[in-house]
């Protein structure tokens, strides 16, 4: 009886959370669509920007000179919100996002980038920078525990991380060099593809690997872990290792280009393709984000794509939300949340696509 009422309460809580998120998104839509919040600001600022940019670019050449330079920012905007409005809204938005992400079994980054770029007035460059930091912070918080319990395997992670992190730098450079509308369009397509992937993929708890391949054997990609729920000791090894490693090239590029994190792709490749047990795949994937996202995050940080005023509330909100989400997870049935998240991803992916194409 107690269990039933807990489950009911959790479902009610989840429904309230989702309603709150949708309400928040609906409240933010007019702000985004309203020229006062976005277009007006952009147009007004762009009219003044060229002269300032040209002047400032000369000034930014030697870093030492900029240390004493006064910013050329002019308050040309019709956004009448006080300065704290967007950071505080972002904090609450990310708190709810963190709860939903944990319950749906997805990383924060994959929800953060399409939703925040779709419904908040920040440029995509800053959203991607913050998205990487959000994913990085989550991975750093979870990484030590996963490593101690042997759910994240260093031997499995090392070669994969090297490929993914090198390629995420390429992705980050590519994403920052391409025009925003192209990146936004590609982001929309990617998010739509991820939602289909989440809908279709059925992870295997313990994939059957009859024989380890030569690459996996040479890299020592095998191990043993204790399944705490049954007390069983599980031996595992990889197959199709080379194809898996090659796929991490694409995963790395996409992670760096869109600032999404890459848990959505890491887990299916490790689990379904390479035959790593689900728990080790999830644990190693989360740990991998601390490496893959670090290299891309450095590129974004060095290019000035991190605005602390928006990045810090995003990190804090998502981490606090994740803590609450983990507690709710014990009593909730996350299947409904998962389908809701897929719907939200389809919606935000569609919005990003239309925005990129100049329709939305």
């Amino acid at each position: 009886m107690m269990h039933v009422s807990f489950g009911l309460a959790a479902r009610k809580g989840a429904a309230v959370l989702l309603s709150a998120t949708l309400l928040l998104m609906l409240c933010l839509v007019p702000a985004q669509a309203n020229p006062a919040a976005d277009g007006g600001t952009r147009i007004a600022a762009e009219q003044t920007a060229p002269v300032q940019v040209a002047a400032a670019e000369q000034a930014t050449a030697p870093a030492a000179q900029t240390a004493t330079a006064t910013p050329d920012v002019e308050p040309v905007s019709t956004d009448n919100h006080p300065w704290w409005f967007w950071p505080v809204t972002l904090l609450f938005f990310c708190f709810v996002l963190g709860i939903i992400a944990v319950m749906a079994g997805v990383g924060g980054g994959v929800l953060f980038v399409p939703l925040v770029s779709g419904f908040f007035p920040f440029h995509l460059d800053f959203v991607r920078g913050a998205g990487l930091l959000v994913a990085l912070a989550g991975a750093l918080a979870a990484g030590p525990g996963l490593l101690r319990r042997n759910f994240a395997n260093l031997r499995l992670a090392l070669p994969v991380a090297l490929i993914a992190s090198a390629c995420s730098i390429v992705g980050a450079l590519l994403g920052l060099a391409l025009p925003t509308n192209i990146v936004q369009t590609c982001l929309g397509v990617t998010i739509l593809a991820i939602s289909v992937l989440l809908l279709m993929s059925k992870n295997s708890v313990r994939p059957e690997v009859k024989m380890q391949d030569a690459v996996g054997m040479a890299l020592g990609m095998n191990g043993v872990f204790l399944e705490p729920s049954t007390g069983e000791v599980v031996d595992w090894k990889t197959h199709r290792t080379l194809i898996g490693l090659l796929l991490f090239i694409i995963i790395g590029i996409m992670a760096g280009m869109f600032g999404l994190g890459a848990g959505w792709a890491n887990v299916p490749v490790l689990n379904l393709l390479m035959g790593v047990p689900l728990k080790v795949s999830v644990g190693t994937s989360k740990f991998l984000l601390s490496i893959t996202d670090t290299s891309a995050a450095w590129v974004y940080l060095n290019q000035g794509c991190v605005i602390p005023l928006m990045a810090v509330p995003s990190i804090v909100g998502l981490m606090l939300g994740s803590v609450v989400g983990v507690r709710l997870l014990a009593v909730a049935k996350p299947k409904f949340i998962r389908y809701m998240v897929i719907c939200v991803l389809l919606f935000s992916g569609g919005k990003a696509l239309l925005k990129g194409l100049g329709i939305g």
Partner: protein
Amino acid sequence: MRALKKDTSMSTPTKDIRQDIKASPAQLRYADTLFYGSLVGFVALLATYALYVTGLLEPQIPLEQMHTVWTHSAAEYRALGHIPQGWGWLALLNKGDICNFVGIVILAGMTIICFAQLALSLARRKEWLMFWIATAEVVVLLLAASGVLVAGAH
């Protein structure tokens, strides 16, 4: 019962199952360094953010004007706010917004420190293939952190 054998690798199965299910010493060291480093990074991030939003440290770009710059691309933002590229921000550490990068850099730098520590541990154990992979990872991360890699502005 299987004979006890000292675990000499990161997690390669040995003859002793009790050793195998435990994380290796190298993995535990990595976890500890990551945990304490990240903790320091998070505390630094929150402390500097508090200094920033409470106005105790004057920011490079005034808080009231942030909404006029964050709608622009990163290249325009740097130019409008005189935010330097790469490690140039170190010269502006007394600014409220810029000092937040200290915490971010600690968080982003932890993986480099952990991998350098891991590479040394692997070298001591003469696990040369893994040593070279870990060393290559350190090089990749240092390259990303150096600020040498710059994308063309769009």
